Every structure is written in C-alpha cells, then in structure tokens.
C-alpha cells in the first residue's frame, strides 16, 4: 500500500485535470480541493455532483472545468446517484473507474445524509468527498449542521450566532463501519493526496471530509485560505486523521496546538466573539481532541 501511494504521489505534481476558467470565487478552498483530489485520482474518474458551489464552479452548460465525466444531480442524491453509476459500471464491464460523489456540507451533513447513510450501510463502492465550507455558501451563507458553534451566518445573525456545535460527521460515517474514512485539508496536499489514493485502492464506501475555507462565507481575506486551512489543523479545530473499518483511528498529523483564537481572529464570521466565548470554543476543541487521541490509542 505504502509503495503504491508513493508511486502515485511521485506523478501527482505533473498532471492537472482542472482547467482555468472555472467559476470559483477568489481564494476558494473547494476549487483547490477538487484540483488536488483529481490529481490524485487521475482521469479514470466519474464525478457525481449534487447541488453545491461546484454546480456553479464547474461552469455553465456546454463548459466543464474538469477533464473527466460529470453527472449533475439533485441536492440530496450524491451518494445514491453515485451508487447507480457504480452499479452500471459493474454490470456493463468496461474500464475501471472511481465513482466520486462530490458534495458540500449541506448536501452531506443535512439533505443528503439519508442517502449517504444508505450507501454506506450497503458499502457501495464509491468515494464520497464532502468539501466542507461550513454553511450553504452557494445560496448566500446560511447555516448548515456543519456550521461551527457561535459562527455568524445569514440565518444565524447577530446577536444570536449559531447556538449548537458542528455535527460530528466523521463519527457518523465511522459508525457505519465503512472501510475507510479520513479528514483532509487543502493546506496539506500530500496528506490529502495520499488519503485519496488509499481510498481509491479500498473497495466499498470511502468517505473523505475536506475542510475548505470560503472567503465570502467566512469573511476572510482570499489570500488567507491555505493559512486558515492550516490553522484549523494546527489548532486542533479540524484534526487530520483516518478511521479504518469504523474502529481503527490513526492521527495522520500531530498538530502544534496553537490557540483557537489565532484561527478565529482571521474570520469576520467570528469577530463578535467575547473572550469567554473563545474560551468555550477552546474547551470544546480540547475535549474533542482528547476523545480522538483516546480512540487513536485504542
């Protein structure tokens, strides 16, 4: 496995499948994520795209900014439509391909969760990537169940920012005992690519959760996207880890443990936070990290 990954990583840097002219905003983490994932997967990939930012990013009718087949589908159907594509490929034979369901956090944590759960329970052979920008960004920054605690959105306006923490999507997927689940970051492209290549090798349902900063939605400077993605990891807000068969947890990068304040202060969606609230977030992040470390030690 390790050799296979290293071999694939060596060719990773040369090939590009995403082309210029896409419609992403400046500094879009989701565009970066697609670029890295496609580089890792190569041209033997079929993308299934539910309603999300990427519906727009890929380009309007007659254009596409990825060099692989794309099936646009309804909001809540990334997983189920991808399972249909996979079933067809199995029955028809033909060349081997990775079926990549590529959904945002709304399409994954919220409206598409039921279909995803069904696919995971049946262990359909697809790679499901959730690029998580932590709100409904395409429709103009409405809260999703991936929106973090106390974040501002247009549906959690001040003085009542989001009262509940983010849903633990990785735990939900792990509970389905799928062969492989991992978190990844656009600030750690080698780690991301290694995980994608690993997922390509596994049979069954694979889930990769990528945090993708969103300058318009997070109210952050567009040149800070990679830095923010890195800070999310280094502050333990978004640790990088893998879960095999739902039980074997492995932390893939040991974060420096920078205070969450450093991450939050670059985003205006958190600019209303008082010291006490930052402390509350820090505490939750520390507790989640401790739980993860325990699982990884097990």
């Amino acid at each position, binding site marked *: 496995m390790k050799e296979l990954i290293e071999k694939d990583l060596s060719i990773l840097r040369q090939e590009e499948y995403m082309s210029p002219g896409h419609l992403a905003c400046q500094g879009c983490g989701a565009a970066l994520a697609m670029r890295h994932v496609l580089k890792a997967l190569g041209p033997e990939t079929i993308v299934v795209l539910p309603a999300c930012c990427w519906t727009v990013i890929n380009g309007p009718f007659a254009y596409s900014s990825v060099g692989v087949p794309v*099936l646009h589908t309804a909001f809540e159907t990334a997983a189920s439509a991808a399972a249909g594509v996979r079933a067809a490929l199995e029955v028809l034979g033909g060349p081997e391909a990775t079926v990549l369901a590529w959904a945002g956090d709304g399409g994954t944590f919220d409206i598409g969760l039921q279909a995803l759960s069904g696919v995971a329970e049946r262990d359909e052979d697809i790679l499901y990537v959730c690029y998580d920008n932590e709100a409904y960004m395409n429709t103009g920054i409405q809260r999703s169940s991936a929106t973090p605690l106390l974040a501002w959105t247009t549906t959690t306006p001040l003085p009542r920012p989001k009262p509940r923490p983010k849903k633990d999507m990785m735990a939900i997927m792990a509970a389905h005992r799928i062969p492989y689940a991992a978190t990844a970051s656009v600030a750690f492209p080698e780690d991301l690519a290694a995980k994608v290549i690993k997922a390509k090798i596994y049979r069954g349902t694979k889930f990769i959760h990528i945090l993708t900063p969103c300058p318009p939605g997070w109210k952050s400077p567009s040149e800070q996207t990679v830095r923010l993605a890195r800070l999310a990891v280094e502050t333990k807000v978004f640790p990088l880890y893998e879960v095999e068969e739902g039980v074997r947890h492995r932390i893939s990068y040991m974060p420096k443990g920078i205070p969450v304040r450093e991450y939050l202060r670059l985003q205006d969606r958190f600019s209303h936070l008082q010291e006490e609230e930052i402390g509350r977030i820090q505490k939750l992040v520390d507790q989640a990290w401790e739980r993860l470390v325990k699982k990884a030690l097990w």
Partner: protein
Amino acid sequence: MKQIIEGNHAASYGAKLCRVQVIAAYPITPQTQVVEKLAEFCGEGSLKARFIEVESEHSALASCIGASAAGARAFTATSAQGLALMHELLHWAAGARLPIVMVNVNRAMAPPWSIWADQTDSLSQRDTGWLQFYCSSNQEVLDSVIQAYRVSETVSLPIMLCLDAFFLSHTSEPVDLPEQDLVDAFLPRYKPQYKLDIRDPHTFGGLAGPDHYYEMRYEIQRAMEEAKGVILKTGAEFHRLFGRSYGLVEEYRTEGAGLLLIASGAIAGTARIVVDALRDAGEKVGLLRIRVFRPFPVEEVKRACQGAAKVLVVDRNLSMGYGGIFHQEVKGTLCHEPHRPLIFGAIAGLGGRDVTPRVLEEAARRALSLDRVEEEIWWLGLKK
C-alpha cells in the same frame, strides 16, 4: 408459455425479459411483490442485474438516474407515497432524457391512509415529462414493460406504467410469458448515444441559462409528440412477433355509438361488460379506453369522438377543485372540434371503492337520458 400470475409479477417478468441491468427499488404496498420477485431473479442468477436495496424511493430513482446515465437499462417500481417522494427526480429523469422504465401501482394518497386503487398518485405527476401508460390487464402489464423500453430508448424519455392496486396488482390472470429469444429479437441491447464514459468525458445536466433551457424543453415536447408514432410502430412490430396489439387508445364497439364511455385502467375492463349489456338492450354505446395518457392521444380521441353525440368520462382520480383528470383532458382535446359532443364527467371508485357494472350502467343510462350537461362532476356511488 401461459402462467397464472398477478399483475405485480407480470411487471417483474416483463423487466426480467428485458434483461434490465440495474434495479433500484424500495418496498411499498401494493407494489412490494414486483421488487421481491426481481430480487429473487437476481438472487438465483436468472437475471444478471445489480439490485440496489435503497433506503427510500427518492434514492431508488436517483440510483436509476445514475445507472441510466452510465449506460445501463434501469428499472424501478413504486406506488402512491413513494411516487410522490420521487417527484423531484421524476422531473430530473425526464430533463436528463434518461430511458428509465418504472411500474407504478396506482394507490390512493394519504391521509387518511389507504392502500387501495386510485390514479391520483400518477396523474398528479402528469407534468414531469414521463410518458404514462395505463394498463387494464396483467398481460398488458408484461407486454407494456417490453414495449416501454423500446419506446423509451428511442425517444430518450422515461416511461411510467400504471396498474390499479389490487384489481390488477394482486389479481391473478393467465399471462403468456414470451420466449426470451423473441424478446431479445424485439428489444436489442441499450446503446446510448451519450453516457458517462471516461474514454469520452462529457458533463450532463450543468447549469443552463435562459439562452439554452427553453430549447431543451421544446425538444422534450417534440420527443413526446414523436413518441406517439414510435408507440404505434413499436406496437405494430410487437403484434407481428407476439400476436398482441395495443395502441394509444383502444376502441371497443364504438361503431355507430351515440354515447362513448371513456375510461382507463381496470375500470375499462368493467366498462366493456356494461357496453355489451347496453348494446344487448339496443343502446348504441361504445368504449374508448385511453391507454397512453402522456403523450395524450389527441388525434385518436378526436377521431373516436367524431360520431358520438355524448361522451362520458369515468375517472378514478380527482384534481381537487376542478374534477376528473381524464375528463379535463378530453374536454381540452375536443374544445376546437366543430361538432363537439356533450362531455359528461364522472368520478368513481376513489380509494379503491368498487366500480361495479351496475354503477357504470346507471351512469351510462343517465348520460343517455340527458340532453345537456347540468352538473360538471358526477359522483358515482357517493354515500349521502
């Protein structure tokens, strides 16, 4: 080979004979036997298909959409609430021009809960871009599945085949199961012009602005219009190979009929008996069964109604706030005709209430006795 099978199994055998490649379905009464039988075929290996046991009807159709877009012959079956849950994806399948075939067992919508026959489930999906066929025997269910794939794959639109809950779905009738070789000769393998293929990458369904969307809908309307000819041509070839014939409509003893009953589905079977009885009594009554609802057989309905002074449309469905749905379509179809018959509309049998020959005969006699339309909707057998 003739077998005594229920309507649900007629659908399953039809799908098997078509060598469907991907089935995605969710159980719902009274459709369940359709998918159970198919699961059995897949399990024993007599059908080489992937059966996806999805967690909802919404996912059933989503998986069929994915499978069809990737080039597989896809099949699903549902009923009532399940069909309503699919609504969004009904539009999607048609808009994506995917030749999916679905069997819908016509069942009443809740509340109150009802598992019995009523066509309002499928007729309220009228504008989703699916062709709709209403079957009136188990043989027709099986034959229509086979014809449907050929029609659907020719015009690149999905087809919904409807059969009445229990009256067909759970009623056993002798059905001729054609030889596989003959079906293979009639229905070649599905070879889509475009599909998801890594050797020839395309994007399907991407955002179309006002510059493109409009023409895409025009194309669907055109395909619907072409479908009428395709259904007839396919039916003629089917008749040549299998000896059974179905058109867009079926005329029964319409020659010289002054009163034409118009019905669909299982009620049309009962109406035949009523026509016979009335003819025996010297009344000039005929039956027009509408088999294909979308595309609507405008010319055929006009032609059949030409000589009639009166038409009585019997609907086991209701567009609440207006009336029977076939009734509306017939009125719309005949509105420009120079010689318009009186068009009576009757609601009957909602939620599985029996529509007996007596009920239909009374309605027909009432139509015969009237010389103008006083009540827009008749409620047959309504308890007062």
